[in-house]
């Protein structure tokens, strides 16, 4: 199946498709600028994570089978979301009939920054982004996919997403007081534990604000949607962005 240029299936999580098309466009354009052949399978819907995390993994067999069928034909599957990638890798139910295809999908699906650093072997992106940012490490990417070292483990420090931005001229990344505490989104948690969810989001934003952050940058729009929702409600003008938007902007 493999041709000279690997063929990438672009997986755009459902809420990004509906609410944040610009992040999806940035992801697509960025990959194309890095020389990739990318196709967005039009029939794709959702990976099934919201249902599984609510305790209904067994009911997502249909969604999972569909996901496998949509993406099994690609060499790689790439998504601008650590959370959804982790779900496909670790938490989607096993579909016996599609075992070989499922294994292919699970071992070739990548979060965007992980794909650029580990598969494309790009060390960093050159360009200019003269802003003071705070990085929000989304939990599933951090502790699930290990996109960066976390503050809990005693391990060498690394961060695949920030590594890509390390050479951007003018960029200042602040050190947060709680460098990787959860923002409180957590899927259905955002609604079922509303009070704590909002408090956690407020606390995260406050940490960035205390450090004078202009832009909170993350790799999962679900966390960003949650924090943006709180910031807007509190009439706080801090900007929130997906790193794909920054990289795509600087590279052009």
């Amino acid at each position: 199946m493999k041709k000279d240029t690997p063929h990438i299936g672009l997986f755009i999580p459902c809420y990004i498709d509906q609410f944040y098309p610009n992040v999806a466009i940035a992801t697509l354009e960025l990959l194309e600028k890095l020389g990739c052949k990318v196709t967005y399978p039009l029939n794709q819907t959702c990976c099934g994570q919201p249902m599984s995390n609510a305790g209904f993994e067994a009911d997502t067999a249909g969604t999972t089978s569909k996901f496998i069928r949509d993406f099994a034909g690609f060499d790689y599957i790439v998504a601008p979301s650590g959370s959804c990638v982790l779900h496909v890798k670790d938490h989607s139910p096993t579909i016996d009939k599609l075992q070989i295809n499922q294994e292919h999908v699970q071992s070739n699906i990548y979060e965007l920054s992980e794909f650029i650093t580990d598969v494309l072997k790009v060390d960093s992106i050159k360009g200019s982004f003269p802003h003071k940012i705070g990085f929000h490490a989304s939990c599933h990417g951090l502790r699930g996919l290990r996109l960066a070292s976390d503050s809990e483990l005693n391990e060498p420090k690394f961060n695949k997403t920030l590594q890509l931005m390390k050479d951007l001229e003018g960029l200042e990344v602040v050190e947060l007081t709680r460098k990787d505490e959860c923002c409180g989104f957590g899927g259905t948690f955002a609604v079922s534990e509303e009070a704590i969810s909002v408090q956690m989001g407020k606390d995260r934003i406050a940490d960035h604000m205390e450090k004078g952050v202009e832009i909170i940058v993350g790799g999962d729009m679900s966390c960003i949607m949650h924090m943006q929702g709180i910031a807007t409600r509190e009439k706080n003008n801090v900007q929130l962005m997906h790193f794909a938007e920054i990289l795509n902007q600087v590279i052009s």
Partner: protein
Amino acid sequence: MNHPENATVFLKDVARAKWHDETLWIVREKRDATIHQIPEWEELRELASQIKDHTLSKLDFYLEELEKNATANGIKVHWAENAAEHNQIIGKILEEKNCKDVVKSKSILTEECHLNPFLEEQGIDVVDTDLGERIIQFLKQPPSHIVMPAIHLKKSDISAIFHERLHTEKGNIDPVYLTHAARLHLREKFLQAKVAITGVNFAVAETGEFVICTNEGNADMGVHLADTHIACMGIEKLIPRRKDLGVFLRLLARSATGQSITNYNSHFRSPSPGKELHLILVNNGRTKQLGREKFRNSLKCIRCGACMNTCPIYRRSGGFSYGSTVPGPIGSILSPGIDLKKYSTLPFASTLCGSCSDVCPVKINIHEQLYEWRQEITKAQGSSLKGLSMKLADGIFTSPLAYKISGQLMRASLKTLPDSIIYNPLNVWGKGRNLPELPTESFKDWYKKNRNRA
């Protein structure tokens, strides 16, 4: 028992909730600082995990070995199938000794078995001697944390209860003053007690000894002054070899409070001449949990409390919000095994952020077990309303057309409806958060216009 409701109440006192969060976060930071001084930290966690996995895989063998060796050392070993039997064994020993006053050091197992109320009903005065436990005992509260039982209280709360019970100066909130008042009060109890009850941190099969770790020295003050020592342990507290203690003692205090070790780590192997030493091995549902493949390794827990200190939910809802003996992440995977219905909201009291699993010194995959309990709970609940909507959702996501229609409908309706109505159906999200601004088209629509080569 409903965690979200309890958490909402806890968060109403904004300043106190913030204080609680920050106090525990400092403990987490102390833990981080100390573990970075140990280059082999991750290797120690792996060793501890494997030692516990091994022990659990042949627990029957090690329990018998422990009993054999402990008995040979002169320890009287008892077996209790459940909490009631555990309490009865203790009740009987006290009756034989004609003992009406006991001192007790911290034991989460005796909390689990509700030993104090049982003994009190029999007219026995039980004095909890850990300072934190004595404070909450005065207040008739359960511990809100397994290592720091009174972490939810402020100096002023403690000052008030000490003024009432120990006649300390009204309004004196100096921790040194209050601690020394407790020292004098408890010393009197230690000197009078004939029986001391303790928990157990580790029991070593090959030597038949058990180990108790404290900073205050209260367990030792109790047992060395009393004539009879009763130690209570869950059957999962075993480790095979004495040298395994080297691994666990390096991990326990560093994980719990960031200290390099607890100041007193006492190894009990046989009674002092003329004294009695009892060891009670308690099941109380542990063999059931051992039989649950996905949840078995929750029994590796050494009760350090690190998962509580790191948990952003625990820190912002307090130990009582869990309504279970062991709160926090580890409690949320242990409690459903005891009563699935009562504790059904606990596995959902998590964002599955995974911090608990990464701080756990014995590498229990806590957040993955929270996820697995969710699956069990929804199965047990059958097709509830939420379940129905999830089945519908699966239908929507299985069919691209249905997904497209629902997405368009959502975007269209969100655009045309006034805020008041938007936030009505999405009431809960909208309480403290706005919805994202709506784009004019979905990515799919954009892609079709801009890239579709088909």
